[in-house]
């Protein structure tokens, strides 16, 4: 048993000796992935239909509250955020005393159970919510619909807008 161990050590020494004449080059390879957010479905429309009550001509809030739309997208940065900016529903016809030509509401966008919301009663975007990495649906929900004075709604076509902004961050 002892003889066999000595013989096995000799080949190992013979192999190591040629490496003393070699040089070694090395290529390091690196890259990066930028933080990005992208909407794969960037547009949707919520058509509310008739906004007024037939009984008294005032806003039928039930036509607005609970309505939803779905966008799709993704963010690849762990600190990515989402904000919502709402623009109230308006029509071009002026409102006399006792009438309203505007409908305010709140819009909430939700990604992976993380909500961000904004009310059209206040200017600008709502508070940013950290959504992190996600890929999938962004659900937009309307609520808290109201007209400024609770008056009779002026006849016409009404348009508004909800803007969802995804900001990438690491």
């Amino acid at each position, binding site marked *: 048993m002892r003889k066999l161990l000595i013989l096995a050590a000799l080949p190992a020494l013979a192999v190591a000796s040629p490496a003393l004449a070699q040089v070694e080059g090395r290529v390091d390879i690196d890259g*990066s992935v930028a933080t990005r957010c992208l909407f794969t479905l960037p547009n949707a429309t919520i058509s509310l239909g008739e906004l007024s009550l037939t009984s008294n001509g005032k806003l039928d809030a039930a*036509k607005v509250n609970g309505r939803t739309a779905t966008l799709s997208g993704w963010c690849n940065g762990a600190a990515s955020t989402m904000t919502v900016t709402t623009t109230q529903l308006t029509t071009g016809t002026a409102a006399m005393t006792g*009438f309203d030509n505007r409908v305010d509401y709140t819009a909430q966008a939700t990604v992976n159970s993380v909500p961000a919301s904004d009310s059209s009663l206040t200017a600008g975007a709502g508070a940013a919510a950290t959504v992190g990495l996600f890929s999938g649906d962004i659900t937009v929900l309307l609520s808290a619909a109201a007209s400024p004075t609770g008056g009779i709604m002026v*006849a*016409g*076509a009404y*348009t508004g*807008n909800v803007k969802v902004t995804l900001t990438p961050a690491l």
Partner: protein
Amino acid sequence: MKQTLSLFALAIAAVPSLASAQTVAEGNVGVDGRVAPVCILGDPDPATVNLGQLSAASGPRTGRVATIANRTVLLPASHCNFAGSVLTVRATALIVGDPAAPQAGFTRAVNYTATASGWSGGASAATSAALRDGSNATTSGSGAIQPLPSRADITLTLSNFTTPGDGFLVAGNYSGTVVITLGPAAVAN
């Protein structure tokens, strides 16, 4: 040494792409709706006007139409939510139920004036002009066009009760109707 420089170049090239791609993404949900043009008339108060005894019961006018006080009916909180509405009144004379032609000197119709005010600058009025046999009982009148969406209390006044030829009134129960219409003004072609 040449190998070392190449490695630096690779590393530097990777850095700018990290910064330039960091832009926000925006999604957009359009929200639209509509409000149909509509007019609503307040419920008339009172809904029925009972004039009571129409003929004079004594004196030189016994049997002829009595002096009947004006009556008013309120239609509160009437409104149209669009510009260009008009209020129309259609008055039908009070007619007794018996359709038979009355004898000479008698009448089975009582005319009156219905005036609806409060909607636009001018009132809407109609004066019925039924003949003594009760024919031609209905007359219509419209007011000025309301140029703006409006909400107002409309007051209907019934006045000027007369009979054709100031004849004697046929006995019986008389009934008439005033129809008030609030809607878009007719547009000329």
